[in-house]
Structure formats: C-alpha cells, structure tokens
C-alpha cells in the first residue's frame, strides 16, 4: 500500500534534514563561485576592462575614482573575474550575501571589499517574528528560478518550517512579503495591493537580482526595476538566482537565529 510504503521508506531513510545552522553549511556546487570580493586598490589607474563585459552594467567606474560593483544588479556570471587583468575582482566561495540596505550591496573602495551582511531586526520585531514568520510570496514577473530556489527551502532537506518560517496563501495571514521578479507593469498594482493587505508590522524581502534592481531587465520600459520602487524593502538577497543557502542565511540573519559555527562572522 502506498501509505505503508511511504512510511516504511521514511523510517528506513531516517532524518534527512541538514544540520545547518547547528552544524556546517552544505558545500556550494562546483560551478557556484559564491560571493564576490572587489579590491579596488589593485586596479590599474585607467583600466575599465570589467565595466565593458558586465551584462547588467553592475560595474561602474567614474574617471579617477575607484571601481564600484553593485551586487544587487550582479548576475554572478563571473565575466568580470575573468576579464580583470589585476585579479581585483575574485570569487569568495562564501554563500552569505544578504544585506539590509541597498548600499551595503555596493562593493569597491576601502572597507567595502565585500558585502556588508544583514543585521537582525530590532528587538520588537524579533519578538514578534523570531519564532513564527509567515510570508506571502509574490512572483512579480519572475522567471521561476528564484521561486524554485525558494521552494527548495520547503523540502525535507532544508525544512524551513523548523524555524517557524512558512509560506501562506493569503496576505491577511502573513507577516511579510517575499518578492521575486523585476515587478513588471502588470504586476505593480497586485504587488501594492498585496503589500497593503498585510497587517502591520510587516517586512519585505526581495530575492534575486530582478527583485532588487531589475536584473537583466533593468531600465526596460515594462518593469519597475525591482520591488524597492514600490514598497520599502527590509532584506536584499542577491543572486541570479540566489542559492537556497543564501536565502536561508538571509532569513535566519534577519531573525537572529544563526547560532551555529557558520553563523559567526
């Protein structure tokens, strides 16, 4: 019988949920280089090799100033890593990328070599959401990559529910929104209405380059260049798409739930 088999199978296989965050984080796949590090001190004075190869114009360099890489717009294609003659841009292999402020995602300059990781919510919101955070997902023109990676968090390997974080069907039941996609014009009203329908206090999480800044669609007439144009965003999770670990890290960072060894730093 199907139910019988399922239960037996489950018993045989035991607990398959990962130890993280109590134990070590799972390794990123080989092709995923992790975050980026920009050491503008290494740059040659008039080099702009990286600027021209970036498909989303995430890298800028005003004349005479340090190079600036906006991780919010970055697709993590690593063209700039390959193009840089001075190894000023390197891959870190680190999954931790989420930030609270938009400018914390801009790399370059001294002290800003890497992303400034997200701080926890204030005490009051931690008290409210720390052990129970219900999110409504809004795919505002997303390609389903970010949605798929968010969905992975619900599987037994990740088991988002053990942190008290769940996705709910109605914004009336939600504490916040998780937005993916560049917010196309046709979804702008829906996003605003959904935001209005969530009771206060509420938080907004933008997942993926599109939701942060429009991603590959930046500047297009039919998109709003990210959720920030319409609603106040509390957490930015960069990536195209972000690895599930990156999203989970961002969520737990926000709730101050990272107790394990990988939480430090």
């Amino acid at each position, binding site marked *: 019988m199907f139910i019988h088999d399922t239960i037996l199978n489950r018993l045989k296989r035991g607990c398959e949920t990962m130890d993280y965050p109590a134990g070590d984080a799972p390794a990123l796949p080989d092709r995923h280089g992790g975050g980026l590090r920009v050491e503008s001190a290494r740059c040659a004075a008039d080099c702009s090799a990286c600027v021209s190869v970036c498909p989303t114009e995430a890298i800028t360099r005003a004349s005479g100033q340090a190079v600036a890489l906006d991780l919010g717009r970055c697709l993590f294609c690593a063209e700039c890593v390959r193009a840089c003659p001075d190894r000023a841009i390197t891959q870190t292999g680190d999954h931790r990328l989420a930030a609270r402020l938009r400018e914390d995602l801009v790399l370059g300059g001294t002290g800003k070599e890497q992303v400034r990781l997200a701080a926890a919510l204030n005490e009051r919101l931690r008290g409210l959401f720390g052990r129970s955070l219900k999110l409504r997902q809004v795919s505002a023109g997303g390609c389903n990559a970010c949605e798929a990676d968010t969905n992975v968090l619900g599987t037994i390997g990740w088991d988002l529910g053990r942190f008290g974080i769940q996705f709910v069907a109605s914004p009336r039941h939600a504490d916040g929104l998780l937005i993916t996609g560049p917010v196309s014009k046709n*979804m702008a009203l829906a*996003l605003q*209405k959904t935001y209005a*329908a969530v009771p206060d206090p509420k938080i907004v999480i933008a997942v993926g380059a599109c939701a942060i800044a429009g991603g590959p669609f930046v500047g297009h007439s039919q998109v709003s260049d990210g959720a920030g144009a319409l609603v106040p965003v509390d957490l930015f999770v960069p990536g195209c798409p972000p690895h599930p670990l990156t999203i989970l890290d961002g969520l737990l960072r926000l709730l101050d739930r990272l107790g394990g060894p990988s939480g430090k730093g």
Partner: protein
Amino acid sequence: MDYPAILLIVAACAYVAGMAGALLLRRVGRLALSVGFGLAAVGGACGFLSGVTSLATGQAAARGAVTFWSGPAPNLRLVIQADPLSCFFVTIVSMLGAAIAIYSLGYSGAYLGRKSVGLLAALYNALLLATTLTFVAGNVWVFLIAWEMMALLAYGLVTFEHEDRETRGAAVFYFIMSHIDAVCVMLGFLVLFQAAGDFSFDGLRGVGAKLSSGQRDTAFLLFVVGFGIKAGLVPLHVWLPVAHPVAPSNVSALMSGVLIKTGIYGIARVCFEFLGGPPLWWGALLLALGTVSAVLGVLYALMEHDLKRLLAYHSIENIGIIVMGLGASLMFVSTGHPVLAALALAAALYHTINHASFKGLLFLGAGSVLHATHTRNMEEMGGLVKRMPQTAMLFLLGAVAISALPPLNGFVSEWLTYQALLQGFGSTDSLLRLMFPVGGAMLALTGALAAACFVKAFGISFLAQPRSQAAERAREVPASMRLGMALLAIACLFLGLFPTVFLGWLGPVMNQLTGEALAGRLSLAGGWVLAAPGANAGSVSTAAMTLFGLSFLLVPLFLRRMLGRRAKTVRGPTWDCGLQGLTPRMEYSATGFSKPLRMIFKALFRPHREVQREYEFSPYFARSLRFESHVEEVFEERIYRPTRFWILRVSRRVRALQQGSLQVYLLYIFLTLLGLLLWAV
C-alpha cells in the same frame, strides 16, 4: 359575555367595510388604498385577538355552533362555529392578514395610477373574509361556499397583473386545479352525507363509524386529493410554484402563509373529527406523502433562482413537514397512543403557524426586493444588504427561522416533530413503524437542504456586489412595509423563545382532536424548558440557548476590551488577490452554488447543460460563449403533460358531436329520448 366572539364579528364587519369602502373610493386610489388595507389591518387585529383569547381562556372549547340565518332548508343554514380548531386557524389568518395589510399600505402604492388599487384592496378584504369564514364554517354548505369564494377571489388576485401572459396562464392553471379540489371535497362530503343525513359539522362528528370501510376509505382518499391539491402536496403541487410567484407579493404571502393551510385545516377537521378511528394506512399514507413533499419541495427550491418560486417550493416542503406530523398523529390515534398523537398533532399545528409567520415574512421580504429592484431573478440582485439593511435583516431572520435553526420558531416545531417520529418506532409492531425513523431521517435531510437553500437565497440576493443596475439603484422600502415584516418577525421570535406559552394555548385544540390536551406535560422549569412526553423523550430550552449564545458573544467583546485596548483598527478593502478590483461577474451565481447538489441528485433533476464556444486559437480565449442549463420538472413532464395531452385528444374526438346543424341536434334529442324510453321500459 363571550367577548372574543364579538371581536370576531367586529373583524368580519371590518372586512366587509373595507371591501365596500375600497370599491366605493376606487376612483381615488390613494384613499381606497388607505381605507381598504387600513380596515383589513383592523379586522385582522380583531380576529387575532379573538382567536388568541378564545384559546388562551379556553372559551373556544365551551362554544357551540351558532345559527345566524335559518335559511330555506335545514341544510342551507348559515351556521358559524368557532371551536378551538377554528380559532387556531382564525388566529393564523388574522395575524398574517393584519401584518400583510400594513405592508400593503406601502407595497400597493406602486400600483397607483397603473392599476385599480381599490379593486386589489377590496379583493384582499373579501379573501380574508372568505378564508375566515372557511375556518369558522359550521356546516358543509357554508364551508363549500366559503371554499369556492376563496378559490375564486384568489384567482382574481393571482390574475391581478393580467397584462402578463405568464400570469394569465398561471391563473388559469390555478383555477382548474382549485376546481378539481373543490369537486373532490364536495364528493367526499356527499359520501359522508349518505350516512349522516345531515350537513352540519355537529351532525358529521364521528360519522365514520356509520360508514362501511369501503366508503370510509373512498371518502378519505377524496379528501386527501381535494385538500392535498389546496395544500400543495406532492404530486398535486404543480400549480403552487406556478401561481404563487406571479401574484402581487402581498397576495403571494397570504396564499403561501394561509390559503394552503386551509387544506391542512380540512385534513385535520375531516380525518380527526368526522372519519374517526382511522386504519393505520391512512396515517402512513399521509406520512409518506408528507415526507416526499418535504424532500422534493426543498430539492426543487434549491434549483430555483427566481426568489418567489424558490419560496413557493419551500411552501411545499413545509406543508410536507406539517402533513408528516398529521400523518404520524393519525397513526398514533389508530394504534391507541393519545399522548403521542397529541404530541405529533401539536408539532403539525405549531409548524402550521410557524410556516405562516416565517413564510409570510419571507414573501414580504421578497416583495420588498421586487419593489426595490423590479426583478425576481436572484442572479440580478446582490449587494442589497447595504442598500436595504432593515429588509435584509428581517429576511435573514425569516431565513434562519425556516431553516429550523435555534432559537427561532422553525426549530421548535421541527424538534417536536422529531420527538414524535423518534418515539413512533416503538408504538406499533406493524412493519409500517419503519416509516417513523425513515421520516425522521428525511426530515433531517430536509432541514439541512433548507439551510443550504437559504444560504443561497440570502447570500446571492443580499450579499456581495449588485449584479445589475436595478440592484445598484435599490433603496430601502417605505416604513409601512418594514413594519408589516417586523410584526411577523416578532411572531417568529415569540414562537421561538416561548414555546411552552403557545403550546398551552394549543391545548384545547389537541384536546378537541385527540382527547389529550398534554396540559403541563410539555413544559419544565416553570415553562422555560420544553419537554416532550415519553420515557426517552428529550427536552430543550430555546430561551437558554439564546442566553448561552449571547453570553458567548460577550467573550470576544470582553477580550477585545481587555486585550485590544492599544491595538489600532485598520479598515481595508476586501482582499481581491491583487486584481484590478472585484466585479459582479466574479461572484458566485445561484446556479453555480447549487451545482454540487444538482450533480448529487441528478437522477431526479436530469440536468441538461449546453455550452457553445466560438474561438479562433484556443478554447480558453473564446470570442463568445453561451451557456444554458436547466433541470427537468419530473411531475410536469411525466404526469401532467401526458394527462393534458390525452384530455385534449379525447376532447377533439368528442367535438365531432358538435356539428352546428339543427337536424343533427334534433337527431341527438330523438336518440336520447328513445334511449331513455327503452331504459324506462
């Protein structure tokens, strides 16, 4: 002095005055309206007081028949008799008559300048008079005249808006059916007359004992068909959902509330008083007919989206419930259980007055909606709760009552019916005892379906957004109409909350018909708890339920005060899934709401569904879409249509006799004479 009897005469005078006044003043519509319906309201109030005080003081039981006019022959006397059973039904007709008359002061204003309101008011008064006379008739002659007057006057009122083809057809159908019933009733009385030799009700009392069993059964069946047509028992019901909706709504309320109850009165009077000592199968037949009527009535009601037709089908359902009680009572009489018989009869009579009050209320509510939106189609209503809040609340109260939800009156009478039915299983060894639990189960099904039906009726008509411009422009109805409805709502509340008081008044009626008044056996705790007699019987207190419910309401209020002091309230729009706004096209339709039940009972409904799509690329992007769905009306299609077909066919053959030639007619006369002579020889 018998003051209640005097009040009854005053009521009759008020009806006559109202009739005459409305006719005399018919040129001045507004005045005719006020005088006609005003006097009807006065008459109704007097009749109501007379009926209630007669029952409450027990004066009715002591009264004999009174002869007002001795007439040319012993059987042609004008004899009036206001015994408890009569007084009970007079109470119903007067209560409803008064409330509807007040309602009509506002409702009939819509006819001013268009139709003769004076005629409407006069017919209304005459109908009240005829109905009251039917209930207090003391001999067959008066009864049949009043019965016929009632049918004719009701025909006149049904056909009031005769410009409409549908109305004329419905009125003629009603006319034919009510004459078939009059013929059956007349024949039934003739069978009784053979043995009694007397047409007075006093003379007919207990006449069943003098009849052979064949004659008794014949008379019983004739009365069941005759009174069954009037009451709308399945399968004799088909005229009811046709005729009731097309009448003006105040008349519909009177017809559904009272006129069909004359059939119940007839069955009660004849079966309990005249035929007496019934065999078991009489009660079983009535119980079966009642069960079938209840279930089929509510099932067909569920499929309706014409608000008044829906209510008309619910009348069939409720008549079914009443007849279930009567049938059970007759079965108990024949098995020799007077206490149970009185209990079942009390349930039936209680449901009779309940149905009059809530169905009157609901029909008046439907009339208010019709008055405000000019449509009976529920699919074109919606959003009325915001535009006519008081009407909506009153309609909701009626809907809760008819759905038999505590603490309103429908619950009390259906509870009594359950108590009688559930105790019935042990009352006899005959296999027919199986009918009691089956009837109880069917009653439960009926109650659930009725609740579903009124969720639909109230939800689709009153909630959400208006589906048409007419519904959007609807406004609250005049105060007189609301007052009329409110009076019936008060009756529903009273009958629901104080059942033991009312059952005390019913005592003389039960005593008259079953010889058992159940005095003091139905109430516990000083009248606050209703208890059924019997070892395994239950008890219930609607007043306590209400208090309990209200105190539960206090808990969230208290918590809100205590915990929510600092919380701020935010009002937002209805969550619409982020769409550009909700439109009436997205609403649940009446047809859609009832689809699951249509599928479950598809063997009965034989639903027919047709969808036509025109599209270029994909059926999901249709350019035009046509949807058609209807259910088959089994009784009309399978019984009445073939019957009508054969009658017409035979008539066409017979018409060959009519040659239009004098010689042929002379030949007919000659042949007839010859035949008669041969027969005489």
